[in-house]
């Protein structure tokens, strides 16, 4: 076989790993790879985003809805540094992603050459692994390793930096997938004794509560979780990234945990006798004050990453392993049960929350439009089959609280990092990965303007993303905190916004603005029916707050309804 160039090898590696779509932005140091992308355009579809950050979030959206590795590519220097936010987001939300960056020629490394930046140094703390390739012969092995690392165990982002001379260099190419690295143990072995111990505890529990996270989705353990919940009759609540693993309307799904979660699961966290955490990491937004978190309960932690055990909360039994395997195993040892009285306590608290918060949010009678009613109409017209992609802030909390999810991998949001600007490009990536699915991006007016340029990418790709901007002319969540904790000093949170409809129309995207209740349902219906991208601005009440709320430093059971 004739020798091929390093840059052609990059493409061949991607093809070998089954990659069909990548997101990126060209530039000097990555041009040889782009030249090969041109030649291989029938095999790999490169999507030109309008900013490298958009490429990373699109790759993340792609990964989150499909479970596959998302790929983003950029040039050296500023191209590489623009990937940083997406890498950090993927790292903290355990998203499998590979970023490829061009780098100056190996002879120039360290010389402050044009567009040289130490992206390996910069990306080290925000990647699961990274590597700088300086010889073409390294390419096959490093790519194989990168894909294996990104998707195995607890997934995460990997960055590969390739010097320009390595891209040009000719070598003999052969590709072998990797399924093990001696210094890396992605999935701990299951300890059957721990499973039995945990089952024993679950079987004697009077008031058990399951709290699950994204580990269930990443481990494809949705069915195993539902089986466990249904057999044991244990109420189950979710973290924001765990949302949609069990359908919203499942009778044992008792809602969302954490700062703006549902009333019952937060209050009951501090009343349960056994807390069963599955694929979640006790984030501070979930636990509130850790010194007053579930102190009365014995805690079982199902977790794939040993470093998460006892990191934030001390647990009594740690069951290490992939959730699919551990849940599949424990189901054999747990007894059939129902916790009727205990479950009724949850529905009683739900009624309290419904009367004080939910009803007014989704069935408002006041003049101004609420974010909750928008979500209600989206639920109605998508029948709960849409993937909802959200940004960060009030709209995110409202969307996660009120969206009706019927399928897993349907809640795509920036959880751990809280990246404003995530939603628009992530929705594009999600739609391209799952063209048959309805993808609705729900975004605030603040975050929308952080990556608004990706409207250009949506226009160019014609990906039929539905974009809903909930516009309150404020950075709403920060304003809410200013109102509650800073005596209404609205420091730099009011936004003077442009005409969003005109901007969308400028990109030839169908667009509409709604500010009256009567117009809302028809507009959402029209949007969902559209086969093309569609932009809908909903002017919502300016100074509405998201409740319930656990103020920072409070205990989960101190959750406020107003």
């Amino acid at each position, binding site marked *: 076989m004739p020798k091929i160039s390093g840059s052609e090898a990059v493409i061949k590696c991607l093809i070998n790993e089954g990659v069909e779509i990548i997101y990126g932005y060209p530039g000097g140091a990555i041009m040889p790879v782009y030249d090969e992308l041109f030649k291989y355009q029938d095999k790999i579809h490169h999507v030109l985003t309008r900013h490298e950050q958009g490429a990373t979030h699109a790759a993340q959206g792609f990964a989150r809805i499909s479970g596959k590795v998302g790929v983003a590519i950029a040039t050296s220097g500023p191209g590489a540094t623009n990937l940083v936010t997406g890498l950090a987001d993927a790292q903290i939300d355990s998203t499998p992603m590979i970023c490829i960056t061009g780098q100056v020629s190996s002879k120039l490394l360290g010389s402050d050459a044009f567009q040289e930046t130490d992206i*390996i*140094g910069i990306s*080290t*703390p925000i990647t*699961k*692994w*990274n*590597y*700088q390739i300086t010889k073409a012969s390294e390419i096959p092995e490093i790519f194989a390793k990168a894909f294996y*690392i990104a998707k195995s165990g607890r997934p995460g982002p990997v960055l590969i930096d390739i010097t320009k001379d390595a891209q040009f260099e000719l070598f003999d190419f052969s590709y072998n997938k990797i399924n*093990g*690295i*001696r*210094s*890396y143990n992605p999935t701990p072995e299951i300890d059957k004794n721990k499973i039995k111990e945990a089952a024993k505890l679950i079987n004697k529990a009077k008031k058990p509560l399951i709290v699950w996270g994204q580990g269930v989705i990443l481990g494809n353990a949705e069915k195993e979780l539902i089986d466990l919940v249904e057999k044991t009759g244990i109420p189950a609540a979710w973290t924001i990234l765990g949302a949609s693993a069990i359908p919203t309307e499942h009778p044992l799904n008792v809602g969302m945990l954490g700062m703006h979660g549902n009333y019952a699961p937060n209050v009951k966290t501090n009343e349960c006798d056994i807390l069963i955490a599955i694929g979640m990491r006790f984030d501070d937004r979930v636990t509130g004050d850790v010194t007053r978190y579930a102190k009365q309960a014995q805690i079982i932690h199902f977790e794939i*990453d*040993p*470093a998460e*055990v*006892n*990191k934030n909360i001390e647990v009594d039994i740690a069951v290490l392993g992939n959730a699919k395997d551990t849940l599949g195993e424990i189901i054999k040892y747990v007894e059939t049960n129902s916790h009727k009285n205990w479950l009724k306590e949850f529905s009683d608290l739900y009624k309290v929350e419904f009367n004080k918060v939910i009803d007014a949010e989704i069935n408002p009678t006041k003049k101004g439009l609420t974010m909750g009613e928008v979500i209600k109409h989206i639920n109605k017209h998508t029948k709960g089959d849409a993937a909802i992609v959200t940004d960060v802030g009030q709209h995110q909390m409202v969307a996660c609280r009120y969206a009706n999810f019927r399928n897993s991998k349907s809640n795509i949001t920036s959880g751990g990092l809280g990246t404003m600007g995530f939603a628009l490009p992530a929705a594009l990536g999600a739609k391209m990965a799952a063209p048959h699915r309805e993808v609705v991006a729900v975004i605030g007016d603040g975050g929308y303007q952080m990556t608004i340029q990706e409207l250009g990418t949506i226009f160019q790709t014609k990906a039929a993303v539905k974009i809903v901007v909930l516009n309150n002319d404020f950075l709403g969540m920060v304003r809410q905190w200013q109102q509650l904790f800073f005596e209404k000093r609205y420091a730099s949170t009011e936004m003077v916004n442009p005409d969003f409809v005109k901007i969308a129309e400028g990109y030839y995207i169908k667009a509409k603005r709604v500010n009256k209740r009567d117009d809302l349902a028809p507009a959402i219906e029209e949007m969902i029916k559209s086969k093309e991208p569609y932009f809908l601005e909903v002017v919502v009440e300016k100074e509405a707050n998201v409740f319930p709320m656990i103020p920072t430093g409070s205990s989960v059971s101190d959750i406020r309804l107003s």
Partner: protein
Amino acid sequence: MSEKKIKYTVSIYTENSVGLLNRISAIFQKRHINIESFNSSITEIEDVHRWTILVHTSETLIKKIVGQINKQIEVIKSYYHTDEETIYQESCLFKIKSSLLFDDRKIQNIIKESNAIIVTVNPEFFVIEKSGRTYELDELYEKLSKYGILQYVRSARIAVTKAPLFISDILKKFKKK
């Protein structure tokens, strides 16, 4: 109540790869912990390196940090130990004016009693080397500093553990898979 902070020796068995040091030091930096000394060396196993890091912190934190270190792809295994659980040594070099040896005979006695080794002597200066536990090096430094030291340098701690570590077993297990 804040937990007691003591010295912990962190031993990390690693692959020999560029950039790993940055990754590990970032884990300490993230938690605002200063590294007191660092040593990298070859080991009894071919192609496996051992890092010895000395830090002053609490057990709660060092446990979490070692957990984070273990997670890194190129780390084979890492451990933390107290001084009592290890046999450790540090070494140091003193550069002292040669004239002092003859001006004050006491220096010769200090050197003899401390079991320090004279590395070199020339008309201007002499260099002595001393290996031992931290307090032994401290003692010698204190005694000699009265006479004036031209240069003093101390190496990182190296340590072996009293308990076995089974690194070869981990690597063998991988080969079997």
